């Protein structure tokens, strides 16, 4: 019999000022991380340097503790601690590109990991450390470039000492310091032990490269993680294990807020094969077993008398009669003027004076994240009083603070590990009722053993946070020429941020309204408002957040206005953007990419009748324009081609940008064609992919991408390509079928 290779994970903790370093332990860790035996662990990040690093505790520039970010090995490979987690969006590769650019080291020589929590890695000017909001490259690339430039200067300084020549006589070539005059050079790997022990230079002493000098930024470099992800070597939280670990599964209460009454067959559960123990958790019954399959079977078999929620429950209690269909109708019938989010001119007067007024109510649907990796958490309380937690997360510091609060442990005693994410799309922020870690912590405490809790796909669909639903009352005024002169949108909704916080903020929730707000069309009088209605549903962020629905709502209504005014929707947009060079360029770009704007309907080569729709969006600092071509086959919408032009200002890796556009098109198509989280009687109708259809390969459209680098302030890339996709499709369908599309998904419509 063969001994099974043990995938036991160990702390990947990288030494920081806050983490005393045990060199021998680190050597072991590197070995366990797959580094070849004999790789020598450099004296980087050692306590000797801690004092100096501490002196930089409040640096003028964030992210300047170079030794905490970089380990340069004798073989010149570079281990980089990334402030941003990799979940498919390519940020690890982008970080290697921007650091490598300034350090002068080939990004292909980088090994990138997610850094542990701590202020050292909060590199964004906001002081936050979040992988979300399409912020990583947008706000992280400049500080990370600066860190790379500082590291390069330290290499030069160490080279100066070693070669006995002034820094001014030295230069670098990728991975080495060169003294051209004498022809001598030293590799970064040779210099690292000295270099990383030098004081970090004044951040003001380094100058970042001009774009014209870039060697790697802007190039379509290969991703660093593709081979591992093509051979099963990539490790996600669900793959982690530690010695002595037990597995856990849960059965949640059917409705949030309910509590465990009695477990009628508890003794039988305990007698099931492999079962270690049965536990009562807030709103769940858990089974701990030697193997997850045994735990899951027993958890599913539990016959629980669920108690109705207590009157004073602080949770967002799900009522027994909740129905998404009824709730959508309720939102649509809610009347009121709402609270102003964005106003210009006097919309009421303008509507009164308009030649034609168009009124319509549009709505969006609840959506699941449906990322392929079901959530899990591995928890280990250690004999020395420390705690290790492995969990999928987009913000390690936030989870650290939350876990410290829950356990009463000092944050310095808690090691947060952030493995690769098996998709996220907004799924892994702090959603206390929607994440396994509070349960895993309790189970590890109660059993005294390390616990890995995996939520089955069914439990995930039951407790996932949903993209909000909104009904928007639109009124548009047209002048005698059919040009929009007034637009009012009152969104009846609760935004994700106010939902997650379970209270309204001082200001309106931007994440509720973005995409209705922030439009650039020159409609002289307009008003965007929110009419708040609290939902019983636990909501969260979903790729492109408010824009994911609001650009659909706005851009489809804009087409309705165009049709009412007998305007071509592409030409109308161009006119409404007159003088806005960035957006008219972008609209021209997508038109050109599609072979010239033609709305149709027309007959394609295969005999099908087709039409095209157009839409635009301005999400997360970037600008996008999309054209989609559709036909109807057997009453169902087919999307043939999607052309997307995206202007993020400037970019780091065009190949990754294209991949993100293609992926965002897929998710946008999935939303507009198929997806809707339906609740009846307080429970979700879908608990797995069989009842919650997501886009399948045969539904995928061809995707054509044009990246426009206008040079404007850098915007995001992960989320921005999504929001204009659903309205472009819906606008094409409205035109092709003559049936006005005012809601998603299109699978709910019947087309002749």
């Amino acid at each position, binding site marked *: *019999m*063969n001994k*099974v*290779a*043990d*995938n036991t994970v160990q702390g990947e903790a990288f030494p920081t000022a806050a983490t005393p370093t045990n060199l021998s332990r680190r050597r072991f860790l590197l070995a366990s991380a797959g580094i070849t035996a004999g790789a020598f662990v450099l004296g980087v990040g050692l306590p000797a340097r801690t004092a100096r690093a501490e002196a930089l505790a409040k640096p003028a520039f964030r992210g300047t503790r170079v030794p905490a970010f970089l380990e340069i090995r004798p073989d010149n490979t570079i281990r980089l601690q990334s402030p941003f987690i990799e979940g*498919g969006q*390519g940020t690890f590769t982008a970080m290697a590109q921007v650091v490598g650019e300034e350090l002068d080291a080939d990004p292909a020589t980088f090994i990138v990991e997610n850094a542990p929590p701590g202020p050292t890695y909060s590199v964004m000017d906001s002081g936050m450390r979040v992988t979300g909001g399409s912020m990583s490259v947008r706000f992280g690339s400049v500080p990370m470039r600066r860190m790379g430039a500082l590291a390069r200067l330290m290499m030069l300084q160490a080279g100066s000492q070693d070669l006995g020549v002034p820094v001014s006589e030295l230069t670098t070539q990728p991975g080495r310091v060169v003294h051209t005059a004498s022809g001598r050079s030293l590799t970064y790997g040779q210099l690292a032990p000295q270099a990383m022990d030098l004081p970090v230079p004044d951040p003001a002493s380094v100058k970042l490269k001009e774009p014209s000098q870039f060697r790697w930024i802007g190039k379509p470099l290969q*991703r660093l*993680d*593709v081979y591992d*992800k*093509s*051979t*099963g070597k*990539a*490790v*996600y939280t*669900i*793959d982690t294990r530690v010695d002595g670990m037990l*597995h856990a599964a849960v059965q949640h209460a059917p409705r949030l807020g309910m509590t465990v009454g009695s477990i009628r067959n508890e003794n039988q559960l305990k007698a099931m*094969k492999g079962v270690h123990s049965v536990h009562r958790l807030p709103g769940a019954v858990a089974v701990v077993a030697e*193997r*997850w*399959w045994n735990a899951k079977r027993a958890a599913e078999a539990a016959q629980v008398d669920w108690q109705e929620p207590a009157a004073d429950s602080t949770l967002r209690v799900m009522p027994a009669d909740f129905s998404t269909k009824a709730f959508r109708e309720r939102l649509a019938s809610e009347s009121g003027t709402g609270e102003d989010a964005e106003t210009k001119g006097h919309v009421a007067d303008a509507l009164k004076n308009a030649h034609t007024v168009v009124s319509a109510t549009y709505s969006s649907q609840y959506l699941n994240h449906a*990322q*392929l*990796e079901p959530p899990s958490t591995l928890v280990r309380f250690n004999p020395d009083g420390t705690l290790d937690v492995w969990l999928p997360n987009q913000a390690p510091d936030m989870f650290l603070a939350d876990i410290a609060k829950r356990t009463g442990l000092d944050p310095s005693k808690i090691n947060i590990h952030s493995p*690769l*994410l*098996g*998709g996220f*799309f907004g799924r892994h922020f702090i959603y206390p009722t929607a994440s396994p870690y509070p349960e895993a912590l309790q189970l590890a405490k109660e059993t005294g053993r390390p616990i890995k809790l*995996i939520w*089955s*796909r*069914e439990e995930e669909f039951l407790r996932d946070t949903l993209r909000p639903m909104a009904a928007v009352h639109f009124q548009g005024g047209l002048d005698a020429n059919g040009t929009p002169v007034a637009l009012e949108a009152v969104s009846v909704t609760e935004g994700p941020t106010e939902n997650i916080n379970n209270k309204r903020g001082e200001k309106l929730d931007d994440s509720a309204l973005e995409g209705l707000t922030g439009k650039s069309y020159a409609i002289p009088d307009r008003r965007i408002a929110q009419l708040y209605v609290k939902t019983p549903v636990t909501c969260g962020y979903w790729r492109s957040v408010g824009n994911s629905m609001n650009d659909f709502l706005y851009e489809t209504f804009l087409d309705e206005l165009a049709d009412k005014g007998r305007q071509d929707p592409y030409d109308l947009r161009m006119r409404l953007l007159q003088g806005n060079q960035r957006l008219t360029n972008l609209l021209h770009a997508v038109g050109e990419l599609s072979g010239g704007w033609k709305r149709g309907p027309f007959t394609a080569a*295969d005999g*099908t009748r087709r039409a095209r729709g157009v839409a635009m969006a301005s999400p997360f600092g970037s600008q996008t324009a999309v054209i989609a071509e559709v036909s109807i*086959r057997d009453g169902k919408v*087919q999307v*043939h081609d999607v052309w997307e032009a995206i202007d993020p200002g400037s970019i780091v890796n065009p*190949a990754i940008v294209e*991949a993100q556009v*293609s*992926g*965002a*098109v*897929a*998710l946008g198509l999935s939303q507009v064609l198929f997806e809707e989280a339906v609740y009846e009687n307080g429970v979700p109708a879908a608990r*797995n*992919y*069989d009842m919650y259809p*997501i*886009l399948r*390969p*045969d539904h*995928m*459209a*061809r995707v054509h991408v044009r990246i426009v680098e206008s040079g404007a302030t850098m915007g995001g890339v992960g989320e921005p390509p999504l929001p204009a996709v659903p309205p472009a499709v819906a606008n094409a369908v409205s035109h092709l079928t003559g049936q006005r599309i005012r809601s998603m998904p299109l699978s709910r419509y019947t087309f002749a």
Partner: protein
Amino acid sequence: MELQINGKTYEVQADADTPLLWVIRDELGLTGTKYGCGIAQCGACSVLVDGAVTRSCVTPVEGVVGKKITTIEAIETDDVGKRVVEAWVKHQVPQCGYCQSGQIMAATSLLRQTLHPTDEEISAAMVNLCRCGTYNAISAAVHDLAGGRPGQIAATGVSGQASARESGKTVATATIALVGIAALGTIGAKATGNGRDES
């Protein structure tokens, strides 16, 4: 029970009706094969059983005793699998990567059965879900392997185990085997001819 996985023999303790997936992952520690849905919907758990792609999350372990099981960990020991991995790297297919073990298993199984699969056969075989939306990259990689696209990786060196049928002659059927489960899979040609041009 003894299982033959990746050319080695393992003695396993799990109950006979335990899904193969959980034996592979938990008992043997081979975590490259993923749990996605547990009901044969997504394909993340795909492995090869005697060369046929099989959804291990619904395959009782007793049903595969005596059969040759290949997981992603051994994919590069298979000539076809190695070429598939190379194509995945060339086309930079993965994003989050979670579904890709299963996608690669599906592609490997297809190409072991059919040296030059037709578009229809590819559509019928490549049905696994991907939430990141890498479908076009997957399609490009598989078409490249199938020899139908520019910049192709030559479809040579297929291992002797593959039943190298000639391309374009056979109807795509039964590319998913759900061993021991009532739903014996025939994905068939449902994905063909959806009215759009092939890219």
